[in-house]
C-alpha cells in the first residue's frame, strides 16, 4: 500500500527518511469495503527532505478521504467537481507542471501519489481512505491490498475485519510475497458472521536477508471469502433508511447457452495476439457444455462462418471447431460491422427455425483488437447497426486486446447490448484472461431477472432488471426505504430458469434482522447508504456511455451530485490536495480514471501506440516542421 521514497539524488537522504509506522486497516460490511492506509514518517536529517506517499488502490474503488498531518497541522483533500477543481488547480499552478495524483498502474490497480517537503526532524502522517463494493466472481469475493514499502518499517500492520450477516462460508488469506516463514504470521479468525485477518511482521521478519535493509514485503495481500446463501430470494439488509438486497441463488440448474464467438483475425492480430486467441479458444472449446450450442465467425476484410448455423456442442463438433481455430491466421483488414451483423443473423435464424433448446440463452462474444478498417468504419454507425440488429435479444460481450485499443468504442457497444467490455492486457497470460472471462459467463442460471419491491415502500432504486445471472456472481440492488421498513422485506424475484419461470418471495422474518446489526463495532453504520450511493454512481456512469445526449446529461448531473454529497472521487470529481508549501505546485488533483483513459505502459516487445480514429494517427514525438517533399540521405 505504500512506498515512501525521496527524490533527491543524495544517497544519504534515503536513510534520513524513516517510515516508522505503516498500517492498512480494512473494514468490510456486507461486501462494502472501507480501507484506510496510514503511514507515519519522520525526517531524521537536519535539512528538509521530500517524501513520497504512493498507494496502489483498486480501480473499482473511490477515494473518499486523504489527509496529511504535518507539525500538528492537518491538511485535508477536498472533493470538488472536476471542472471547478481544475480551475483552482490551474490558478495555483500557472505553468501546469504538476501532473495529477492518480495514474493507471495496471490491470486491477491505480496509483495514488503525493509528495511533500518535510522540515528537519519533523514528522508527517499520511492517511488515505477508499471504498469499494467487492464483486462476487466465480463464487468468491476478493479484497486486494497491494503493499510495497521500500524500506523496513518499525510498525507494519494489516488488519482486516469482515462482517457478513449472512454468515461466512469460507475465508482465505494469502500474500504473493509471503514466504513459508511468514505464512504463520497471517492470523485468521472466523466466527459465524465475522472474520478477522491480520499480518504484522517484525522488523527482522521484514528483512529480505538477515542483515539487509531491504524489505521482503512487496506484492499483493489477498483475502478471498464467500458467504452463505440459505435464502433463495437473497438477503435484504436495512440500516439507517437504506436497504441492500443481495441475490445469488444457488442449486439452480444451469441454462443451456447458445454462443457465437466472433474472432478478429485481421493483420493487426499477427503474432502473439492470434496465437493467444487460439490458445484461449481451444481451452474454451474444451470447456463448452454438451447442452450448449455454439458457432464461430472469424473476420478480417471479409467474414467467414465456420458453419452456416449455430450447432450443438457435440464432441465431434468441438473437435472440428478446434481444427478450425487452429487454422486461423492473421490477414487482411478489420470488418467488425459485418462480422457482428452476421453473428446476430445466425442467432436470429436459429430462433426462427426453433433449433435451440427451450429456455436457453443466447449471447455473442466478440474478440478484437480494435479499429474497424474495412466495410463500415464509422464507429457510431457500427454501434447503431449492432444495437438495432440485436434489439435487446442477446447480450454482447466485447473483449478488447491491448493498450492501444479504442476501449470506449467496444465499451459502448457492449453496454448498449446488455453486455460488458473487458480489456485483455497483452501479456504472457492473455489467453488465461480470455478464458477467465469466458468462465464468468459460462454458466448462466437465470435470464430476464426482475426484482420487485413494494412500490410505496422504497425509492431511488438502483438497477433491478438484469438480462442474465451467472453462477458464482451476484446481483445487488439498493435503495432508500420510504415507508415502513418491514415493507421493504416483502420483495419478489421473477426470472426464467432452465425449468421454466421462477418466482421467489422473501421468506426472512423481520426479527432475524434485528439481531443482525446489534454489534456495531464491526460495521460502519452508514454503509447501506454509502453502498447505495456507490452503486448508483457506478450505474449512472455506465449509462453515460450508452445513453442519448439528454440521458447522458441527466445521468451526469445526478452522478456528480452524489459524488460530491458522499465525497467520492469519481470520473466526475477531483480531490484537491493543498500542500503546506509556499510554492507554485502546492496544489494537486487526485482524479479517477476510466478504463478508456487508463492506457498503461507498453509491454515488452510492444511499441507504444496511439490508435483509434483516424486510422493513421500514429505518432512519434517530433518537432513540427512544415510538410516539404524531399529526398536526402543520412
Amino acid at each position, binding site marked *: 500500500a505504500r512506498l515512501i521514497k525521496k527524490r533527491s539524488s543524495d544517497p544519504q537522504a534515503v536513510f534520513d527518511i524513516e517510515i516508522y509506522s505503516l498500517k492498512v486497516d480494512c473494514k468490510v460490511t456486507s461486501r462494502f469495503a472501507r480501507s484506510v492506509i496510514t503511514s507515519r514518517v519522520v525526517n531524521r536529517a537536519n535539512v528538509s527532505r521530500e517524501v513520497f506517499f504512493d498507494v496502489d488502490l483498486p480501480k473499482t474503488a473511490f477515494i473518499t478521504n486523504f489527509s496529511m498531518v504535518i507539525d500538528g497541522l492537518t491538511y485535508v483533500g477536498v472533493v470538488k467537481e472536476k471542472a471547478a477543481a481544475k480551475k483552482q488547480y490551474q490558478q495555483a499552478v500557472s505553468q501546469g507542471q504538476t501532473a495529477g495524483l492518480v495514474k493507471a498502474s495496471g490491470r486491477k490497480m491505480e496509483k495514488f501519489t503525493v509528495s511533500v517537503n518535510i522540515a528537519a526532524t519533523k514528522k508527517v502522517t499520511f492517511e488515505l481512505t477508499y471504498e469499494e463494493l467487492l464483486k462476487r466472481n466465480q463464487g468468491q469475493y476478493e479484497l486486494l491490498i497491494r503493499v510495497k514499502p521500500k524500506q523496513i518499517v518499525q510498525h507494519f500492520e494489516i488488519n482486516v475485519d469482515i462482517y457478513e450477516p449472512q454468515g461466512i462460508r469460507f475465508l482465505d488469506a494469502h500474500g504473493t510475497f509471503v514466504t513459508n516463514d511468514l505464512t504463520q504470521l497471517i492470523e485468521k479468525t472466523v466466527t459465524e458472521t465475522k472474520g478477522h485477518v491480520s499480518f504484522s511482521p517484525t522488523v527482522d521478519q521484514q528483512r529480505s536477508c538477515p542483515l539487509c535493509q531491504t524489505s521482503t514485503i512487496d506484492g499483493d495481500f489477498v483475502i478471498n471469502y464467500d458467504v452463505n446463501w440459505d435464502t433463495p430470494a437473497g438477503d435484504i439488509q436495512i440500516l439507517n433508511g437504506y436497504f441492500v438486497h443481495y441475490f445469488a441463488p444457488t442449486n439452480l440448474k444451469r441454462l443451456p447457452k447458445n454462443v457465437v464467438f466472433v474472432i478478429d483475425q*485481421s*493483420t*493487426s*492480430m*499477427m*503474432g*502473439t*495476439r492470434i496465437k493467444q486467441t487460439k490458445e484461449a479458444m481451444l481451452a474454451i472449446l474444451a470447456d463448452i457444455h454438451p447442452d450448449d450450442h455454439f458457432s464461430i465467425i472469424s473476420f478480417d476484410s471479409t467474414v467467414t462462418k465456420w458453419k452456416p448455423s449455430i450447432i450443438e456442442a457435440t464432441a465431434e463438433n468441438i473437435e472440428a471447431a478446434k481444427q478450425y481455430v487452429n487454422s486461423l491466421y*492473421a490477414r*487482411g*483488414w*478489420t470488418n467488425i460491422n459485418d462480422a457482428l451483423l452476421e453473428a446476430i443473423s445466425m442467432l436470429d435464424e436459429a430462433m426462427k427455425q426453433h433449433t435451440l433448446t427451450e429456455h436457453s440463452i443466447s449471447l455473442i462474444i466478440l474478440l478484437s483488437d480494435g*479499429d474497424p*478498417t474495412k466495410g463500415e468504419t464509422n464507429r457510431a454507425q457500427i454501434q447503431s447497426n449492432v444495437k438495432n440488429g440485436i434489439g435487446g435479444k442477446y447480450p454482447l460481450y466485447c473483449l478488447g486486446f491491448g493498450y*492501444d485499443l479504442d476501449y470506449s468504442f467496444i465499451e459502448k457497444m457492449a453496454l448498449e447490448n446488455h453486455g460488458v467490455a473487458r480489456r485483455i492486457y497483452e501479456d504472457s497470460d492473455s489467453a488465461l484472461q480470455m478464458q477467465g472471462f469466458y468462465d464468468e459467463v459460462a454458466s448462466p442460471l437465470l435470464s430476464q431477472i426482475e426484482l420487485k419491491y413494494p412500490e410505496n415502500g422504497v425509492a431511488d432504486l438502483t438497477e433491478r432488471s438484469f438480462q442474465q445471472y451467472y453462477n458464482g456472481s451476484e446481483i445487488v440492488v439498493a435503495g432508500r426505504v420510504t415507508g415502513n421498513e418491514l415493507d421493504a422485506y416483502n420483495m419478489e424475484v421473477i426470472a426464467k430458469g432452465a425449468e421454466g419461470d421462477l418466482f421467489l418471495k422473501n421468506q426472512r422474518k423481520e426479527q432475524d434482522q434485528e439481531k443482525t446489526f446489534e454489534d456495531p463495532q464491526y460495521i460502519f453504520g452508514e454503509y447501506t447508504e454509502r453502498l447505495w450511493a456507490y452503486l448508483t454512481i457506478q450505474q449512472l456512469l455506465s449509462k453515460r456511455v450508452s445513453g442519448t445526449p439528454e440521458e447522458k446529461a441527466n445521468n451526469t448531473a445526478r452522478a456528480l451530485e452524489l459524488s460530491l454529497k458522499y465525497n467520492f472521487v469519481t470520473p466526475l470529481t477531483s480531490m484537491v490536495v493543498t500542500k503546506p508549501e509556499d510554492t507554485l505546485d502546492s496544489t494537486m488533483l487526485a482524479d479517477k480514471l476510466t478504463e478508456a483513459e487508463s492506457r498503461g505502459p507498453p509491454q*515488452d*516487445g*510492444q*511499441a507504444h*501506440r496511439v*490508435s483509434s480514429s*483516424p*486510422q*493513421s*494517427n*500514429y*505518432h*512519434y514525438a*517530433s*518537432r513540427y*516542421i*512544415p*510538410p*516539404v*517533399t*524531399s*529526398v*536526402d*540521405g*543520412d
Partner: protein
Amino acid sequence: PHFIIPVPKQNDTICFNVDERPGVIFNLVRDPLTGITVNGQTIGDKKIDPNKKLNTYFGRFGIVNEKLGLKLEVTTRSIEITSGKEKMAFTWSDTVSMKQRSFALQINKERNLVVMMGDSVQFVIVLHRVWKDHPFHQDYLGFYTIDSHRLSSKTHGLLGQFYHDLSFEVGEIHQGTDPEKPDAMMMIKGQELTVTRGWQRDYREDIKHGVQVPCWFVHHNGTGLIDGVHSDYIVSGIF
C-alpha cells in the same frame, strides 16, 4: 537516398528509400507545363564497408527551366548557372544572393542553396559536409521542394508524382520485426502494402542532426507507392 512525402490532409507522412548503384541519374521532377525538370545523380561511399550494405546519396543535381532558358548544376563542390548564353560558377564557400525577373537564387555559405522560379516552386539543396578524412563517407546533397503545389498537376518524376493529391489509409498496426517499429497495412493507389512505422530526418533547419519526421516506410524501393518501379525513372544525362 530517403524520400519523404508529406500528406498534409492526413497529417501524416510516407517515406521510402531508393537503393541503386552509384552514378545512376534519376528524374526527380518533370513538369511539362512549366518546363521545369530536376534530375539527380547518385554517389556512393568512398569505399564500401564490407559489413554494411551499399549506401548511396545524391551528389549532383541538374535543374532546368526550359521556359526561362535556365540550367543549374549543383554538386558538392560547385554551383553552375547557365542562363541563355551567360554562365556563372560559384563554390559552397560563397555567399550569393541574386535576383532576376523570373528567377532568384541564394547560396548560404557551406549550408544550402535556395532556388526560386518566378511565382512557382522553390527548391532547397542542402549540403552535407563530411569530415574529409572520413574513411567511408563523403559529402552529399539533399533536395527539398517547397510550395510544390505550384507546379502543374501534370508533374511527374520520382519525387514530382507526389506533389499533388495523395491519399492513403493505414490500419492493422501490429508488431513488426523491430519492436520499436510496428508494421501496418497501407491501402494506397488501390494496392495493399505492408509498411513500417519509422522516421526520417529533415535537415533543412538542423544540418547536423536533422529533425525527425515520423513516417510510414514503404519497402522495396517504394514499390507499390511509386508509379512503376524506381528503375523506370533512370535517365541518361543530368539535363
